[in-house]
């Protein structure tokens, strides 16, 4: 009996091939970037190796005769409430490799999803619901600092505003594409996000990988990010977008930096990031010029100076335990936007332990930040953008009712172009052509089609948001923002209710 490492026996998926249906066309062989399917010369047919399958479903989707079925392997360990299979398998893996467990995408761990405990209101009798197909329904949103009050001058033509406002960015929908760096996802998707954001009148975020010269023309709808690695940051870059975002942390991996392996650094990534081809691009855990809140204050103002105070500066932080106090400090340090990334937010690569165990859910973080900023009378000084685990338009509505000005979507945008959440983004082998810079795989994404799909998703959500708003008897998004009276909670304890600031259903 050949020796097989223990790990090999406990793979997660297996392939079911319908022999009658299979025509041996070898599409699956070419599509699978993990080498599951292969041509067996001796038997003159396509066969497969189950141990390699990571469950991306690419072959299943492309098989011309629907001969394939990818299933979770039903083989079970002896039931054990403590030692669930994932822990057992992880130990086998680490015993083999001696390495950190890597993972991609947001945490699949079973942490309460508070969106599911929150329910929305609708009008009945005492106020009419509003039909968005007949009446105006307004979703326009502004992100940036606002003054507490305004001074007007009345002229025969109408009012004139005397107060000078700080720069804000205007969104047609309260949804933006979240930071996903060029390098972690490929160029085709960056073009797609840029085009979709421009078409929709919203924004996409470059992520920490810089902005390729050819995308500068979409600058009006771009938020340029400055992270601890400072990749691709220079004067033109800072002035290329409509807003600048300082990335302090990421929900999927609070407290640690990033690592783009050298294999992913091709010529285009290299020129955009300003790092040599093939060298690892490492983002340190902290910004080495920010060891305290006053340092952040300096960086915010350095960036404002560099961009001549023409664009708002956002600061993105991961949702950690003291997020409310941290956000308050960030706003006082001069941020015009605080983006909060919850622990279910996606990532190209993160140590699984960090991803599944560090941080707090966005719902609680968002609610406490919004309340804290209001309690301190500084809510108008900055907008709040919620990120991390927004799955549908109802989640967006709930986030806004809790107090967000807008939400960032990342994972949802990738799902729109075919991602199946296989969570192996860190391998660079994404069979859907997303989290990969391999030209053979990357060309699976056509930027035109991807842009269309992303735009479609947002438009669909916008329609749904309008329906929900109208149902609540509201015709403008600002009347929903922070309006927690439109939410009720089921199945939560009193402390959770207090944190969310939401009444229990039935009250």
């Amino acid at each position: 009996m050949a020796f097989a490492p223990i790990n090999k026996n406990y793979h997660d998926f297996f392939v079911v091939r319908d022999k009658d249906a299979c025509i041996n066309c070898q599409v699956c062989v070419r599509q699978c970037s993990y080498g599951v399917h292969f041509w067996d010369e001796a038997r003159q047919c396509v066969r497969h190796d189950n141990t390699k399958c990571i469950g991306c479903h690419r072959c299943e989707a492309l098989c011309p005769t629907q001969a394939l079925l990818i299933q979770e392997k039903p083989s079970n360990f002896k039931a054990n409430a403590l030692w669930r299979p994932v822990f057992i398998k992880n130990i086998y893996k680490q015993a083999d490799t001696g390495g950190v467990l890597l993972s991609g995408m947001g945490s699949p761990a079973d942490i309460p999803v508070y969106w599911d405990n929150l329910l929305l209101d609708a009008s009945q009798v005492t106020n009419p619901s509003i039909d968005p197909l007949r009446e105006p329904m307004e979703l326009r949103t502004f992100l940036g600092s606002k003054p507490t009050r305004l001074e007007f001058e009345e002229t025969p033509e109408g009012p004139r505003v005397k107060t000078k406002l700080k720069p804000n960015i205007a969104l047609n929908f309260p949804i933006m594409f979240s930071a996903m760096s060029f390098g972690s996802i490929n160029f085709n998707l960056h073009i797609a996000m840029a085009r979709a954001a421009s078409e929709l009148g919203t924004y996409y975020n470059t992520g920490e990988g810089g902005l390729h010269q050819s995308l500068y023309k979409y600058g009006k709808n771009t938020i340029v990010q400055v992270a601890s690695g400072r990749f691709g940051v220079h004067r033109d870059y800072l002035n290329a977008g409509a807003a600048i975002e300082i990335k302090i942390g990421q929900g999927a991996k609070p407290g640690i930096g990033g690592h783009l392996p050298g294999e992913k650094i091709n010529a285009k990534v290299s020129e955009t990031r300003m790092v040599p081809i093939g060298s690892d691009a490492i983002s340190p855990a902290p910004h080495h010029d920010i060891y305290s809140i006053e340092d952040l204050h300096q960086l915010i103002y350095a960036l404002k100076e560099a961009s001549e105070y023409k664009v708002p500066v956002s600061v993105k932080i991961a949702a950690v335990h003291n997020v409310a106090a941290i956000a308050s400090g960030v706003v006082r340090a001069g941020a015009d936007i605080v983006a909060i990334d919850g622990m279910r937010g996606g990532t190209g690569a993160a140590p699984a332990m960090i991803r599944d165990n560090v941080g707090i859910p966005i719902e609680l973080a968002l609610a406490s930040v919004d309340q804290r900023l209001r309690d301190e009378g500084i809510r108008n000084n900055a907008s709040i953008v919620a990120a991390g685990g927004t799955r549908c338009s109802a989640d967006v509505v709930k986030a806004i009712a809790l107090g967000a000005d807008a939400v960032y979507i990342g994972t949802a945008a990738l799902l729109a172009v075919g991602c199946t959440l296989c969570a192996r983004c860190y391998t660079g082998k994404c069979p859907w052509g997303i989290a990969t810079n391999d030209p053979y795989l990357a060309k699976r994404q056509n930027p035109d089609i991807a842009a269309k799909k992303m735009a479609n998703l947002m438009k669909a959500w916008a329609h749904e948001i309008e329906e929900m708003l109208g149902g609540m008897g509201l015709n403008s998004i600002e009347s929903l923002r922070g309006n927690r009276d439109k939410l009720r909670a089921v199945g939560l304890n009193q402390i959770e209710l207090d944190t969310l600031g939401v009444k229990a259903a039935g009250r």
Partner: protein
Amino acid sequence: MKAPERYYDFQKDISGCGVFGVINTKRELIPGSMPIQAMCTMHDRGNGLGGGFAAYGIYPDHADKYAFHIMCETQEGLDSAEELIKKFFVIHESQPIPTKPTLAIKNPPIVWRFFLSAKQGGDRPKWRTNDEKDYVVNVIMHINKKTPAFVFSSGKNMGAFKGVGFPEDIAEFFRLDEYQGYIWTGHNRFPTNTPGWWGGAHPFTLLDWSIVHNGEISSYGINRRYLCEHDYECTLMTDTEVVAYEIDMLIRKHGLSLRMASWVFAPPFWDEIDRMPEEQRKAFEALRMVYGPALLNGPFAILVSDGTCLMGLNDRIKLRPLIVAESGSNVFMSSEESSIRDVCRELDTVWAPKAGEPVIVKLED
């Protein structure tokens, strides 16, 4: 201010209503019988769980004093309020508000009025450096919070009279036919869940401002939180309260005109704003960006007065009725034309104001 503990867990009543208002631009006095009769016509817009009136010009002899109307279930409560008032104000007169026992009004609270002037500077126990109006508002909130008594009217040469009952019964109870004023507003209420509390009836007043409101403010949840950021705590379990505080904040504290404030309540739609000339487009964009949390969303028709004008305003898509009519120097605003016709047969003009367009009628002087 920091939101009080469990501020989110409030109860609020929901109600439909009828409103009526009249102003004589020449300050000729209108007897109480007219608004009473008009409200009678709209009897069916209420269900007997709330009625009230506000009248301006009723206390000419004390025109420079704050007229505090206070209600309280118990004498002890009232005494504790009086204690506080003594500390913060100079009392010029203190008397029961004249009432008449009526069959329809059951278990009325004790209603009392004071004519007051505010203590100044060092004589004040608290809020020494506040300007006078701020000071008075602070004391009112203080009394409402710290004692079981409730200040339901606090302006000069004006008064609110309200309670649980049909407006005509409330009027009879307060003997309103004995008063005369140059501006009157009236309110008939149809709450669907009521705490049955006299303070919850309309009009709502703060200093000289009074508001009657027909509608439901669906944006209440955020209006309330926004006001709390600006130190107004909503305690009255009704959404009209936010209108009163917003008016106070926008006009008195932020210095906006009533017209600008009405644009905060019911701003133009974006596609209208986008078509405006540059200066106005900027002004309205700023208004919506900054005062978005104060937008009153949902169906409403409100009548607002500060003793110098009467304003009628509908929500942005006119989901509640509001009719305006003129006859000589009288201008009427009402939920129903019938109520106006009933008190004034011959009208010069009658029209229904457009959605979101305020009608502001000022006194001539």
